[in-house]
Each structure stands twice: as C-alpha cells, then as structure tokens.
C-alpha cells in the first residue's frame, strides 16, 4: 500500500517536473494540455452547473430548428455570440466551464444531427437538411456527407430503415 502511494507521488512529482520544464522552455502545446487537466480537477460546482446550462441551451436551440417543417430557407443555427448573450456570460467564463469539452461548433453539430436522425422518421431528407441549416445548391449534399460521417449511414438509407415500405417498388 505504501509503495503504491510512493509510486503515485513519484508520478505527480515527475509530471510537475515536466510541466515546469515545458513552461520554462516555452513549449506551449504540452503546457496547454496539462493546464486543461489541472482545470478539470480545479473545476468548481458553479462551473459544472454552467457547463450543464450551456449544453442544455445548445440542445434547446438545436431542437427549435426542427419545429417548423414548412421551411423554404435553411434554419438559422445558434452562434456563440447569441449563446453568450442569452446566458449573460463572458467568453472566458464559457471557456473555463467548457475546458474539457469539444469546441462550440462541434457541440452544435452533434446536437443538430442528433435531432436530424429523429426528424428523418417524419420528414423528407431535403426538408430535414433545411431544418438542420443546410441550404442552397450544395446544402443537401453536405448534409448527407456530414450525416454519413457521424452515423456511418446516409439519411435516405436511415429513412428506408425507419419505413421499409418506401423502398418497396409496388
């Protein structure tokens, strides 16, 4: 038991040593990674609450995009500025709360495509693409490509799975 504690202590000391070394020689990347790790341990309950709040707001905005099926133009996606204004927080607060998370755009995309998979049960592919904010001439194609990247299946294939009668030729 004592040797395990000593081993853990040694690992901590060595990490502190490398952290100081990288900081001293101005090698930014490892220092950033280590800072992120330290921030994860240091995170206060307020920051954890803020993180949940941010994730819920992004999810709500993504869900709102799918409310109107009679869209003719692509739905507007939430931007970082809008989110910050809505929650009345600064960029630094956002960064501190979401230090262990993906970037804002990745989170937004994930949420949008989560609802897109659901919406495909009830709407056509090009309508869902518009709801997801993919418009214009290349919109549906980009939507399909991104959808395939995330779910490893095209939207039309998923739609056929949901409703097998669509694929029937009779």
């Amino acid at each position, binding site marked *: 038991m004592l*040797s395990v504690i*000593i*081993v853990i202590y*040694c690992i901590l*000391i*060595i990490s*502190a*040593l*490398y952290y*100081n*070394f990288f*900081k*001293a*020689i*101005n090698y930014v990347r490892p220092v950033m990674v280590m800072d992120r790790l330290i921030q994860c341990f240091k995170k206060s309950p307020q920051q954890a609450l803020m993180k949940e709040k941010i994730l819920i707001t992004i999810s709500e905005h993504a869900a709102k995009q799918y409310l109107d099926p009679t869209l003719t133009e692509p739905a507007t996606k939430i931007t970082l500025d809008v989110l910050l204004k809505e929650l009345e927080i600064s960029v630094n607060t956002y960064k501190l709360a979401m230090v262990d998370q993906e970037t804002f755009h990745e989170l937004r995309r994930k949420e949008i495509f989560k609802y897109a998979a659901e919406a495909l049960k009830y709407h056509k592919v090009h309508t869902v693409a518009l709801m997801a904010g993919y418009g214009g001439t290349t919109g549906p194609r980009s939507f399909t490509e991104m959808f395939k990247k995330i779910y490893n299946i095209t939207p039309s294939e998923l739609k056929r799975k949901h409703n097998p009668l669509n694929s029937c030729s009779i």
Partner: protein
Amino acid sequence: MEFFTNHFFMVIDAYIFELELLALFLIFIVVIKKNEINSSIVAIVVSLLVGLYSLVIGPKVLDWAANTPDLKHEIRFVFYMGFIHADLAGIYVIRKINEVLKVKPGDICNLVLLMFVARASITTIRYMERLIQDTNYLELFYKTSINSINVTSTLTILCLSFMFLMKNTAPIKANKIVNNINNYIRKRTFFFPVSFLINKKWKL
C-alpha cells in the same frame, strides 16, 4: 565492468565538487564585476547549487544507510526523493527567475533544464526499480549516466564561466533587475495585511 568501481565514482565526485566551486566562484566574479546577468548565468548558478547540494548530501545519506541497515526503505526514499526534489526545485527556480527578470531562456538555459529533467527521470526510474522489484539491474546504468551528466555539465559550465569572464554579453543591467524584483514583490505583497496597515489611503 571493473572499471566503474565505487572508488572511481568517489574520486570523480571529489573532482566535480572542486570544479563546481571554482565555476561558482568565477560566475560570482562575472556577476559582481560586470554587473550583468542573463538566463544562462541564472541557469548555471542554479545548476551549480543543486549539484553542490547533491554532492554534499549524497555521501552523508550513504553513510547513514551503512550505519543503520534497519531503516533501508526510509533512507532510500530520502536519498532518491531528495535528488528528484532538488531537480524539480532547480527547474522551478530557473523558470521563476526568468519570469521575474522577463528574460527569454537561451540555448544554455534550455540545456541546463534538459539536464535536470534527464537526471530526475533517471533517478525516478532507478527508484521505481528498487521500490517495486528491489533488484539491482539498473545500478551500473544509474551510476554511469548520473556521473556522466554531472561531469559533462560541470566541465561545460566551467568552460562557459571562463567564456563569460573573458567576454560577456549584456542583455540586462543591474538596475533593471532590482526594479523588476521590486515590482514583483510589490505585486505579491499587495494583499498582505501589513500593506493595508501601511497604506495611507485606508487611514487605519
């Protein structure tokens, strides 16, 4: 194999001790006479002090271990951890001094820092071996690598201190150093209760 005996390492340590003292003396002459300092001088002085510490403390701990075999594990902990902590302190002090003086680390400073990291890593590996396995496979590797790092660093530092004595570049003047240190202390002690009492604005 027989070439690397304990006597051989002891002789090397004795020479290193004298050479390090000489290098420290030369560096102090450079600092006092020329009134100048840079990141390389800071790194060299810290590495010499850490080296002297390990050369003084190391044999004493070994003597203590020879006299009290019952406290084998405790003495091992003190011996290896002392070196690792000294190296960590060395890196930390160099980084902090460079921050206070607002100096960018040069190549010599980076080399000294690398030496600290290498030494601490080797010491940790050796200690892990002794702690977990209680074997002596890495004894030769540890002794030769640590001694070679010490010898090469001491000789290089001695050459560098001669070079600094002959020809010295001057990135920072002494007044600037004093001002920077004063600013740093002022910033750090601003929230200290005494500074509230002294501060005339508060009228306490």
